[in-house]
């Protein structure tokens, strides 16, 4: 049976992608940021996941307003990156795991989530940058992936509570997959930031720190909020925190925080990363 070894959430700011593309990881501005991922690499080496189920929001690469799904599940053998229009270099494709994708699709549909399935899906920076951060270099193509998107472009968006429940359904789906696999669940985006309007540049550090705290042991404090509460508190693009809620929903009730880091600003954004481990007595058994 598949086991979820834990969850990771990380920001996916495009500027991180260009820093990687230009090899700036050791420049004074960037070094502390990239160093914060070293404990994540160590954790990943310890838990050795076979698959990453990666929840993110598409920023207008794969989806347009003609067909805008609330939740979409990728079901392809390969996921290609594409030109997003503002200069980030296109990276090579990532291997998928269509059998697991279809199992997740079947299972969450049985749980009454009305997903869109995608047998082709271009993955944007919100997928590729977290992959590059967690598995620098070749490593990010040695792990198989299931990309899952949450709509943050066109309102109505799903509520934080619905996102969390979707995560719970994904968790049940993964853990009922027959193959012996170690799965890491990822959420990407956030924390507080706003790109559009006179409110551009909005950041809310106290709210972010509250979220980083509550996501560990009191997630209902956040799922109680409405989408609009999130916009108010975290900025228009701060709603990306919903991908963190999906990730968190996929974990068991109790988790251990293994690592977290918070840094403001990276580009316009409060950047953060967190590693949560499922409290599994079973983890040792599949070691």
């Amino acid at each position, binding site marked *: 049976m598949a086991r979820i070894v834990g969850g990771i959430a990380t920001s996916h700011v*495009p*500027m991180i992608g260009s820093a990687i593309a230009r090899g700036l990881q050791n420049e004074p501005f960037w070094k502390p940021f990239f160093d914060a991922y070293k404990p994540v690499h160590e954790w990943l080496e310890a838990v050795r996941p076979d698959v990453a189920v990666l929840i993110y929001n598409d*920023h*207008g*690469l794969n989806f*347009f*307003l003609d067909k805008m799904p609330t939740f979409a599940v990728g079901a392809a053998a390969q996921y290609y990156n*594409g*030109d*997003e*229009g*503002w*200069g980030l270099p296109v990276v090579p494709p990532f291997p998928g795991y269509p059998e697991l994708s279809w199992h997740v699709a079947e299972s969450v549909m049985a749980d009454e989530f009305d997903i869109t399935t995608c047998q082709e899906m271009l993955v944007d920076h919100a997928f590729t940058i977290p992959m590059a951060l967690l598995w620098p270099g070749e490593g990010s193509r040695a792990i198989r992936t299931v990309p899952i998107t949450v709509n943050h*472009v*066109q*309102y*109505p968006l799903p*509520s934080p509570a619905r996102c969390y429940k979707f995560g719970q359904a994904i968790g049940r789906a993964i853990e009922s997959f027959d193959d012996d696999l170690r799965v890491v669940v990822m959420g990407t985006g956030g924390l507080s930031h*706003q*790109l*559009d*309007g*006179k*409110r*551009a*540049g909005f*950041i*809310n*550090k*106290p709210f972010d720190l509250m979220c980083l705290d509550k996501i560990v042991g009191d997630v209902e404090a956040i799922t109680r909020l*409405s*989408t*609009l509460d999130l*916009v*108010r508190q975290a900025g*228009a693009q701060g709603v990306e925190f919903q991908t963190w809620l999906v990730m968190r929903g996929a974990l068991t009730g109790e988790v251990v925080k293994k690592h977290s880091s918070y*840094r*403001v*600003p990276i*580009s*316009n954004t*409060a950047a953060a990363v967190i590693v949560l481990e499922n409290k599994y007595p079973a983890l040792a058994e599949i070691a």
Partner: protein
Amino acid sequence: MAPNERGRDEIPGMIIFDGRQAMKGYALNKMCFSFNSQENREAFRRDEDAYCDKFSLTAEQRRAVKDRNVLALLSAGGNIYYLAKFAGIFGLNVQQIGAQQTGMSEEEFKAMLVRAGGQ
């Protein structure tokens, strides 16, 4: 009005991109979405008016496009994720877009972000 719609107009300094904006902005957003392709970005650069014609932009949208005015583009129904691709044609990054929208210099805008981190 559905419960999730309440209060959307009450956050100062921003427009929630819901159906009202979507109805207004479809042509503009469709044009901006096309800028995912290098070829289309070049076609726009070559003949901006012809390119806007192809997508039947409204007069308000054309004006905002001509002025590279992000606030005007937003109020004409533009969605920030697609507008970012338009801004990409001119090599504008999100700080420069932020500075334009808030009426700050780029340095002032960046300094504001740094201050937010020290709260």
